[in-house]
C-alpha cells in the first residue's frame, strides 16, 4: 500500500531528526537548530499522528481486520456459506458489497461521524473481548437499521419494483418493519450453525 510506505518514510525521518536533537540538544541555540526543533518536535509528529490515524481508520474498514478477532471468526466463515438464503454470504460472494470491505459496507451507518462511532463501538468490543467476558451470542446494540440496507438498495429498480417492497416501502423507510427480522430476509450470518454447513470455496 503506497500510503503506508509514505507513512513509514515519514516516521523514519521523524525518528532520525528527533534522535539528532536527543543526542545534541545544544544545536537548538542557533536559528537553524530552532527551525529543526520545530519541524522535528512539532510538525513531523503531528503529521505522524494524522497520517497514522488515517491509515488505521482505512485498515479498520477491511474484512480481514474485522474477522481477525476470535469472536468474529464464525461471522467471517459465514460469508462463505454455500446457501443463497444466507444474506451476508450472498452479498459477499456476488460482490454486491466490496469483498475487502464486506463487514464495513453493511455495518456502518453512513453518517458524517459514522466511522468515528464505529471505532468507539470497536474499542468497546475490544474491551469486552480482552478485559471482560464476551457474550455467547453477539448482538448489535440498538438493532440493525434498515437505513443501512437502503443506503444501496433505495432507488434500485429491482428493489423498488418488487411488489412486496413496494407495498411496505414507507414502513421500510421509517424502520417500522425490519428487513432482517420480519420473516423476509431472516437468515443473515447464523454464525452458530456455520460449522455444519456446506461452504463455498472460491476457484473450485
Amino acid at each position: 500500500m503506497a500510503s503506508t510506505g509514505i507513512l513509514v518514510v515519514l516516521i523514519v525521518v521523524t525518528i532520525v531528526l528527533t534522535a539528532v536533537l536527543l543526542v545534541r540538544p545544544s544545536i537548538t541555540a542557533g536559528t537553524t537548530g530552532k527551525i529543526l526543533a520545530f519541524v522535528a518536535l512539532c510538525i513531523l509528529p503531528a503529521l505522524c499522528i494524522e497520517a497514522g490515524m488515517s491509515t488505521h481508520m482505512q485498515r479498520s474498514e477491511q474484512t480481514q481486520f474485522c474477522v481477525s478477532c476470535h469472536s468474529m471468526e464464525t461471522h467471517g466463515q459465514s460469508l462463505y456459506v454455500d446457501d443463497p438464503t444466507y444474506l451476508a454470504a450472498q452479498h459477499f460472494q456476488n460482490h454486491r458489497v466490496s469483498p475487502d470491505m464486506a463487514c464495513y459496507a453493511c455495518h456502518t451507518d453512513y453518517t458524517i461521524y459514522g466511522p468515528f462511532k464505529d471505532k468507539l463501538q470497536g474499542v468497546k468490543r475490544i474491551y469486552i473481548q480482552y478485559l471482560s467476558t464476551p457474550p455467547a451470542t453477539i448482538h448489535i446494540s440498538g438493532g440493525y437499521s434498515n437505513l443501512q440496507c437502503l443506503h444501496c438498495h433505495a432507488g434500485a429498480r429491482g428493489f423498488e419494483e418488487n411488489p412486496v417492497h413496494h407495498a411496505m416501502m414507507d414502513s421500510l423507510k421509517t424502520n417500522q418493519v425490519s428487513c432482517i427480522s420480519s420473516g423476509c430476509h431472516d437468515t443473515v450470518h447464523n454464525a452458530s450453525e456455520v460449522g455444519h454447513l456446506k461452504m463455498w470455496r472460491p476457484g473450485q
Partner: protein
Amino acid sequence: MKFTGLGIQTFIRMASALIILGAIVEMVSLRWVHPLAFVLFAFVAITLLGLGILIYLASLVFAASTAGENPGRNAKAGN
C-alpha cells in the same frame, strides 16, 4: 518540580525521547492488521507523540534561559 527551573535542553531531550518512542510504537502498530494494532496506535503512540509535542511547546514558554543555551538573546540584552 518547577518547570521554569529546567533548561530548554532538558525539555528538548524529554520531548525527543517521547517522540522517538511514540514513532517506534506507531511503526510497530503498522506491522499487522488487527484491532489491537489500532488500540496500540490510538492509545499508546498518540499519547507519546502528543506528550512529546506538548513538552516541546511548553519548553518555548516555561524553559529557563541560560547563557550557554541562548547566546544570541543574551548578547542582545547584555551587550
